[in-house]
Structure formats: structure tokens, C-alpha cells
């Protein structure tokens, strides 16, 4: 009897979860749909034929998934979006609009190049984390300055981070064309980072793992993951057991992985740019989720974002909170820039005309995902697919690839004002007025 009741409860609970998930997903899905519809109308008007619309969107899908290496290129483009989206989401959660992720991305890239060039000869197990740390620190510093100014003087972060963007662009140009310029290259670009600082492409993994130090690094990473998973699944497990499992995982990874990947490895295409950054991105999403929902710091951030006055009465140090939030947000953006240099750019350096636009796209992405780390991974995949498919679309249909930005702008519009979507689709307003925390605050 009680068994039956529990079963029914579980079933209705499952159905409620499903319904809730669908409910949460419906608005972003509608926004995407309307965005693409708007894009189609614009293509139709400017080109004068419906066939162009079809050709463009077919090219987009082909380019994103079905052309040679299309899918892996989508994952490559997705990686920085995950980091930048997470950075923006952390800011939004704490009531800060870090519109300067683009600049922090550049500073991260510069710092990474510097750290990658300055210490030749270090083994990858030290150098790679060092370079990523440098990129994160650069981004954190670049975002920390506006955070500090906001905390001390109240200067609004939208204006200051925007200004920091332009300073970062000039700084990047300066660094590329003078201090770090590669004197041997005809193109204006920085020196190449040390091979040990590169992010490994997936096809390189067998040869990289042949080096025992690299294998050790991977084993440590696996052990860390095992530790987190064990603690998550069995929070009260005894210390000896946890230690045993972690040690065993690490040891097995260290001994078994190198010969295993030599015998069988999925990736053997040397022109495939897919790199381990995508794994880092997924890890980052998990870490940010944990930070936001399972730590005191994250709780404080969300409290400050939801209601600064309540947070102040509760004794939360708002100034410190603003600075820390901005720094974390900037660090994530900096890592995105680092990954772009270490894993994606062909020269493993920073060229002069390095324009990303990732940062501004990510604003729409973070809001589309409602600042939810899982949603950001999904949204980043869509954004990466659009960015990657845009070139083939332009080639096939003659429609400029900037239509992607237009579509993303429309998506942002519909996400920002769900009332517009409801109005356009003649939907009823939700019965319960959802008391959502405001995303941004005015100058006051």
C-alpha cells in the first residue's frame, strides 16, 4: 500500500519534473524559433526570393554538422562560448552586467601568450596549468578593476567594462605589434607559445601521453574527477574508501591509458582542431554550478543579486562580493581567450587582426540559458553551431554571415522581453507572476 503510494508519488513527481523542464525550455525554444523566423524574413526581403532562405538555412545546418569536420568544429567554437556564458551568468546572478567579457577575453589571450612564451622548457604538467592560470588572472584583473571601481565609487560596470574593452583592444594591438611580436614572421603576430603550453588536440593525445609526465598529469586529473564523483555519490563514505578509489583511478589511468590510446583512439585526423578545451569547458560548467548553488560564496552572490538591501542587513560584505564576482567572471572570460590562443589559433599565437566577437554573442547566450550552467552548455552548442555553419551558408547562398548576429540579437530581444513573445504568439500571460530577480541595476 505504502509502496504503491510511493510509486505513484514518484511517477507524478517525475511527470512534474518533466512538465517543469518543458515549461522552462519553452520560452528559449520559442525565442530561438522567432529569431530564426525573423532572420528568414530579413533574408527573404533583402534577397527577394524564398529559395535563398532555404539555401541559407540548409547551408547553415550543413556547415554546422555535416560538412567534413563540421561537428568537431562546432564543438571547437562552442568551447569559448561556454566559458564566456558562464562568466556572464555569474555576473547576472550577482546583479552585475559584465559587458566587458570581450576585453577580458583579449587580456586572457595576451597573458596566455606571455606566459606561454616566457617560460620555455617547462614540462607540460606545469606549463599548461600555469598558462591557463595566467590567462585567468589576466581576465580576473581586467574585470576586477571595474569591480573595484563599482564597489568604491559606484561607477556603473556597463560603462567602465565597455571602456576597458576598448583599452584591451588597443593593448592587444600594442602587445602584438611590439613587445611580443614574432620578428621572424612576415605577418604581424606574437611569438609562438612553447609546444608544452599548447592545449592538446584530441588526435595528439596518444603521442602526448607517451611522455610519462603528461600521463601523470592526466592521471592526477582523473583522480581529481574520481574524488569529486565519489564525494558527490557517497558523501559520507569513509576516508580510507575514498582515498582507495581515488588512488586506484589515478594509478589505472597512469598505467593503462597510454598503451590503451595507442592501440585504439577515436581521433586520428591531423586537421581536426578539436582539443581538450571542450573537456575543461564541461568541467568549468560543473564547477560554476557547484560554486553558485553549493557554496557560501555562491549563496552570497545570489543574495546580493536578488536583493542587495537584504544582503546588507544579513551582514554580507557587498563591496567584496562585487569585486570577487567580477574577478571570477573575468577569470572565466580570460580562460576562454587562453583556450583560443593555445588550442584554436593555427599559429598558436595572437595575430594582429584577432577579432572574436565571442564576448558580445555570449550576452544573448547567457540570457537565453537563464544563467543556468547546464543551459549555457546547451546554448553554447547552438551558438557554436551557428558560428561554425555561417561560413558555408555564406558560400552557398551569398547571404552574409552577419545574419547570425542579427538572429542572435532577435533571440536576445525575445528572451529579454518574454511579453513580446506572448504578444506575437497571442499567448496568455502566466497566471502566477514569477518574482524573478532583476538582471541589472541603474546608475544609482
Amino acid at each position, binding site marked *: 500500500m505504502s509502496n504503491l503510494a510511493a510509486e505513484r508519488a514518484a511517477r507524478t513527481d517525475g511527470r512534474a519534473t518533466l512538465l517543469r523542464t518543458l515549461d522552462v525550455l519553452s520560452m528559449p525554444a520559442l525565442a530561438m524559433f522567432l529569431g530564426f523566423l525573423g532572420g528568414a524574413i530579413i533574408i527573404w526581403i533583402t534577397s527577394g526570393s524564398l529559395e535563398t532562405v532555404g539555401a541559407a538555412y540548409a547551408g547553415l545546418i550543413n556547415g554546422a554538422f555535416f560538412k567534413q569536420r563540421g561537428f568537431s568544429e562546432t564543438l571547437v567554437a562552442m568551447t569559448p562560448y561556454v566559458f564566456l556564458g558562464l562568466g556572464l551568468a555569474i555576473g547576472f546572478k550577482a546583479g552585475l552586467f559584465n559587458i566587458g567579457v570581450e576585453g577580458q577575453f583579449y587580456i586572457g589571450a595576451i597573458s596566455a601568450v606571455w606566459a606561454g612564451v616566457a617560460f620555455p622548457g617547462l614540462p607540460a604538467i606545469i606549463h599548461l596549468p600555469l598558462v591557463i592560470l595566467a590567462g585567468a588572472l589576466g581576465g580576473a584583473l581586467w574585470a576586477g578593476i571595474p569591480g573595484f571601481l563599482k564597489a568604491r565609487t559606484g561607477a556603473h560596470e556597463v560603462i567602465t567594462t565597455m571602456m576597458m574593452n576598448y583599452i584591451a583592444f588597443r593593448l592587444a594591438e600594442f602587445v602584438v605589434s611590439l613587445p611580443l611580436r614574432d620578428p621572424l614572421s612576415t605577418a604581424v603576430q606574437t611569438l609562438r607559445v612553447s609546444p608544452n603550453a599548447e592545449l592538446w588536440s584530441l588526435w595528439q593525445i596518444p603521442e602526448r601521453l607517451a611522455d610519462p609526465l603528461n600521463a601523470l598529469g592526466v592521471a592526477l586529473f582523473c583522480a581529481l574527477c574520481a574524488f569529486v564523483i565519489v564525494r558527490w555519490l557517497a558523501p559520507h563514505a569513509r576516508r580510507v574508501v575514498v582515498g582507495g578509489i581515488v588512488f586506484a583511478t589515478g594509478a589505472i589511468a597512469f598505467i593503462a591509458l597510454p598503451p590503451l590510446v595507442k592501440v585504439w583512439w577515436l581521433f586520428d585526423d591531423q586537421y581536426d582542431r578539436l582539443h581538450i578545451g571542450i573537456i575543461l569547458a564541461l568541467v568549468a560548467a560543473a564547477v560554476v554550478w557547484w560554486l553558485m548553488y553549493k557554496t557560501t560564496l555562491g549563496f552570497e552572490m545570489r543574495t546580493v543579486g536578488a536583493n542587495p538591501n537584504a544582503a546588507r542587513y544579513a551582514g554580507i560584505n557587498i563591496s567584496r562580493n562585487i569585486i570577487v564576482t567580477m574577478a571570477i567572471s573575468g577569470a572565466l572570460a580570460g580562460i576562454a581567450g587562453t583556450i583560443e590562443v593555445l588550442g584554436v589559433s593555427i599559429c598558436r599565437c595572437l595575430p594582429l587582426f584577432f577579432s572574436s566577437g565571442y564576448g558580445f554573442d555570449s550576452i544573448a547566450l547567457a540570457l537565453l540559458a537563464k544563467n543556468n550552467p547546464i543551459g549555457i552548455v546547451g546554448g553554447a552548442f547552438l551558438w557554436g553551431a551557428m558560428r561554425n555553419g555561417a561560413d558555408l551558408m555564406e558560400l552557398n547562398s551569398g547571404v552574409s554571415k*552577419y545574419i547570425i548576429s542579427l538572429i542572435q540579437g532577435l533571440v536576445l530581444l525575445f528572451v529579454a522581453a518574454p511579453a513580446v513573445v506572448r504578444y506575437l504568439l497571442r499567448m496568455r500571460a502566466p497566471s502566477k507572476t514569477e518574482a524573478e530577480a532583476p538582471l541589472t541595476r541603474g546608475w544609482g
Partner: protein
Amino acid sequence: MAVLANKQRAIKISSRQILNAVFIGIGAVAVFLVFDAIIGGKCDSKCVIGTLNQAIRYAAPVALAAYCGLMCERAAVINIGIEGMMLTAAMVGYGVNVYAFTWLKAGGMDPALAGDASRWLSLLLAIAASGLMALLHGVVSIRFKADQIISGTVINILALGITGYFYRQYLAQDIPPGPGTFAPFDIPLLAQIPILGPIVFQGQKPIVYFMMIVTLLIHYVLFFTPWGLRTRAVGENPRAADTLGINVFRVRYINVLLGGALAGFAGAWFTLEAVDVFNPQMTNGLGFIGLAAMIFGNWSPFGALAGALIFGLGNTITTTISIFRPDIPSQIPQMLPYVLTILVLTGFVGRAIPPAADGQPYEKQ
């Protein structure tokens, strides 16, 4: 009665304002000395006048952007989409200028006349385009009550997409020769005033002169007309304004549209006055700098103009340093205006008081 009180407030100059002016004066002299030292003591009186003249030219788009923000925010609509409105206007201005000119010339019009006609037409359409973006911002933030800063970001990102799309589709290659920018001219009588004339009233182009007129106009409208009073009431306490029978939504819409038109002038400045090309990065954050100037000026037109002039001076000095000292990497002075903006903003923001209802959507009861 209230009008009278406001008139007094608008005219009265406090001792702090005098102090501020003195500080700014001392700062200006110091800046000049440093600047002169950097370029090697080559700045004579003619160079000073030329620099100031140039500073006003560069200040125009920033000031107009600031007035756009001012009009919107006095009615409590935050507008960070100015940058996007300007970019759209700049693109429309350039595109219409080039294609209208070609079209008119092909129709057998005299080239000089066709040039004039297409320039004014493109100015008009640039303003209309910017106004359309402003209308979108207004509808989203007033009618649909979205977060206004996000709504402004929507404008910025949409503008990036729109300008990028049309630029790549129509304006990147095979462009017919255009009629060029507006010609500079002097204001007849005022240009003869000894020092002021050459600095302010000589050799500027129409939008710069328009900026000067509109400064006075906004000050007058905002502080001396019923419309200005209504605007400020809506910005400070919309509920009270509504109770008195003011249509809050209408006031906000009209102010946002006026602001959009001003941003249109600011955008047209880039392609119809400054240079005869368009590129999608050309506004370079000037819309945001305009917002900083607005905050610096405590939401008043003359204050905003002062902020814009500081920026214009910074920009001019930057350009001059790049010309005289090619050994300094040009990127370093180019950072200067942005650093300046941050400094000015952090120095003044705490003391500036935004309209009380700024950023809050109005719910009619």
C-alpha cells in the same frame, strides 16, 4: 510656482560649481603643458586654437549621444543602446549618401546639386533609422516593461548584426563613388569674434553647429517649458505625474524618440562629417562615452557638453600626439580617451544624482 522654482534652480550657480570650473581650468592648463612637452614645445597660439576647434568637432557626437541619454533618462528610460543607434545611423547615412548620389546623377541631376540633395536626404534617413531603433527600445522597455539595460543591449547587438549584414551585403565592395561629406563653413557674424570665433564658429560642419544649438534648446525645453516639467515629473515620480493627468507612456515614448533622433545626428556625424567611409567598428564606444558625459554632467545639457568637450580634447590631443611623435606607439595615446572616461566617471558618479525613477518601468494602476 514649481516652474518658477525650477527656473531659479536652473540658473543659480552654486559655489561648488565655480570651484569645479576652477579645477577644470587648472586641469586644462596642466594638460596643455604636458601635451606641449610631449610634442616638443611646438604648440603656438595657432595650434592651441586649432586644437580647441578640433576638440569641439570631436565632442559633437559624444555630446549628441549624451543628449540622447539625457532625453531618455529625464523621462526615466535608461538607454545604453545609443551606441547601436549611432552605428545604424552611420551605416544608413553612408549607404543612402552613396546610392542616392549615384541614382540622382544617373537621373541627369547636376553633380553638385545631387551631392547636396543626397547628403541631406541621407542625414534625414539616418535620423529615421536611429529613431526606428529608439522606437524598438521604447516599445520593449515601455510597453513590454523589459529590463531597460538589457533592452539597450538588444539594440546594440541588433545594430551590430544589422550593420554587419548590410555592410557585407551592399557596402563592402564595388561601391560607386559618393558625394563625400558636408563642407565646412563659418557662421557669418559670430566667426569675427576675436578668440571665440576661430575656436567655435569657424570651419565646422552642420552637425557640429546643430549640436551647439541643440544644447541651448534642450536646456530651454527641459527647464523652461511645460513639456520639460512633465518630462522631469515623469522621471522623478511617474505615479504623481499620472495622478495629475500626464500621460506617462506618451511622454516617455516621445522623449525616447527625440533621443533616438539625436543619436541619429551623432551617428550621421561619423559618415557625413568625419570620414567618407563606413566600417562596422567606427563608433568605437562613443555612445557609452556619451553616457559617461551625461552622468558627469549630472543629467543637465551644459554639464554633458562639458563632459563631451573633455573627451573631445582628449581625443584631439591623442591624434596630435600620434602625428608629432611617431615614435610613441599609436595604441598608447589611443587608450587615453577611454582611461579619461573611466577616471571622470569614477570621480563624479557618486556626486551625480540620477532621476529618481530612472530605469523603472511604469505600471499603470
